[in-house]
């Protein structure tokens, strides 16, 4: 089973929920942790994994063989991303726009295009507290996060309950992380910003046909509109975590909540049981 933790709005507590869910559940069954927020991964700061594997994720960039190129412009015409331009006798490649699809190479009548790997980021894998942990890291200055998320998901082990910490937002990286999940836990805060972005996240999960439940974090800081929305939409509120400076402080130090306050373990186990009930 795959449980994705997502949110729409950033900073609502995805990593807190994902980490505590994994740590609590690991005492009962085989779990696996995957931090899919490859732009800003944070789960390792809480789980302190020991990494044993490291691999790079690349995209293939076109390289023009000037000796063979006739500057016919077929590559530039075929590129949907404006990543190649032919200006007179010069062919310019814009690496940041290139998606690495290989179409330019396919259309070149002179066979003048080769492809060379360009590193987008890395994947580190290992273990924490006896369960597999992996995360991806987009290289600073690179724009494309999704290939790293897809590569990371190749590590999914069907024999384990996978906890996937998704990136914030509703765009391509979030879709890449959510696709194929059995259930998505959407973490929000009870504020107008939290509600607005929760609606967007629910929209994404619905088009991907992933059932959702909500976790309200920092409960008590704003208003009751999130709870009202969930009732109207028939979305279960699976857990509420009150606003508490001590919980915020533990987070700031990289301390796992259930380690410091073991009474939370039962709540996270109940949350996992509810997720399983939604899938069954």
């Amino acid at each position, binding site marked *: 089973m795959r449980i994705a933790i997502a949110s729409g709005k950033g900073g609502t507590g995805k990593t807190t929920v994902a980490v505590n869910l994994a740590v609590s559940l690991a005492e009962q069954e085989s779990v696996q942790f995957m931090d899919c*927020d490859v732009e800003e991964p944070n789960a390792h700061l809480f789980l302190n994994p020991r990494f044993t594997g490291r691999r790079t994720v690349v995209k293939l960039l076109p390289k023009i063989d000037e000796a063979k190129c006739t500057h016919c412009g077929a590559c530039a015409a075929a590129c949907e991303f404006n990543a190649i331009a032919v200006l007179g006798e010069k062919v310019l490649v814009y690496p940041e726009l290139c*998606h690495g*699809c290989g*179409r330019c190479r396919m259309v070149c009548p002179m066979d003048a295009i080769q492809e060379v790997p360009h590193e987008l980021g890395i994947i580190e894998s290992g273990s924490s507290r006896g369960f597999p942990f992996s995360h991806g890291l987009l290289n600073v200055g690179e724009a494309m996060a999704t290939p790293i998320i897809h590569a990371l998901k190749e590590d999914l082990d069907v024999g384990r309950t996978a906890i996937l910490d998704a*990136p914030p937002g509703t*765009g391509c990286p979030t*879709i890449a992380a959510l696709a194929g999940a059995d259930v998505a836990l959407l973490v929000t805060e009870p504020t107008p910003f939290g509600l607005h972005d929760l609606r967007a996240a629910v929209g994404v999960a619905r088009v991907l046909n992933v059932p959702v439940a909500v976790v309200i974090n920092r409960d008590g800081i704003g208003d009751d509109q999130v709870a009202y929305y969930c009732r109207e939409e028939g979305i279960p509120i699976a857990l509420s975590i009150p606003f508490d400076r001590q919980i*915020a402080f533990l987070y*700031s130090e*990289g301390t796992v909540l259930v380690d410091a306050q073991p009474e939370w373990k039962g709540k996270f186990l109940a949350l996992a049981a509810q997720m399983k009930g939604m899938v069954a």
Partner: protein
Amino acid sequence: MKSILFLSGKGGTGKTSLAGAFAVLADDKVLADCDVDAANLHLLLAPRVVDEGVYQGANLAVKDDEACTGCGRCYEVCRFHAVSSSYEIDSYLCEGCGACVTACPVGAIELVIQDTGRWFTAESRLGPLASAELLPGEETSGKLVAQVKQKAAELSEVANAERLLIDGAPGIGCPVIASASGVDIVVLVTEPTLSGLHDLRRIVGVVRHFQIPAYLVINKEDLNPSVAKEIGAYAKEEDLPLLGGVPYDPKVTEAMVAGRSVVEEDGSPAGAAMRSIFARLMERIA
């Protein structure tokens, strides 16, 4: 005109709250919300939409099943796993590159342009606003960000604005890079948590990569004074000017619930801190 972009790396550190405060305090400004995945700035602005449009930002490969002979060339060439082993095209995985179109020997696949979002321009109580909304499940937020910036540039020209205040997205990838291109100043908003510092280092890497002058604000700085100190030391080491800290203050959320910025509330410590941060930045860039 100077453009000021708010970024953070980590989400939820207070970018929009600070951008909203600056929107109250700055004169002659235009506002833009480049967090098209999860746009929130308008919730503080009571905007009235003046113009809007559909944005078509992506292609989708569409296959004519009648014409398809099941040869499997599309499956072989697709590098995004968007063609299944039974040669169905997954619209969420398809990047719209057209490699399958080129490969198909019978011309059974074509690229169809998709509606991926809506852009808006609005009049608001704090000035003209450009923003957008990504359609659920659609991609290319980077291109939609570029569209918002284009609309914001048009608004700025019409208004002859002195400042363009841009609320950015979390992360360091495509929408962030799209929002950062061509801006004059970045204000980085962090919080005193290990995650906040970790993510700050990465976003600083991005603004350095694009050589944009950057300034730092530590939000909720009293949450963990020792991590706040560590961030201060990092900023010094990085030559990243610290504009100041903002204390944790429940009035920030109270103001947000009321659709206002905290600088519009009386007696708010966070509001007072944001006022001095604004003044400090204006002095620096004057």
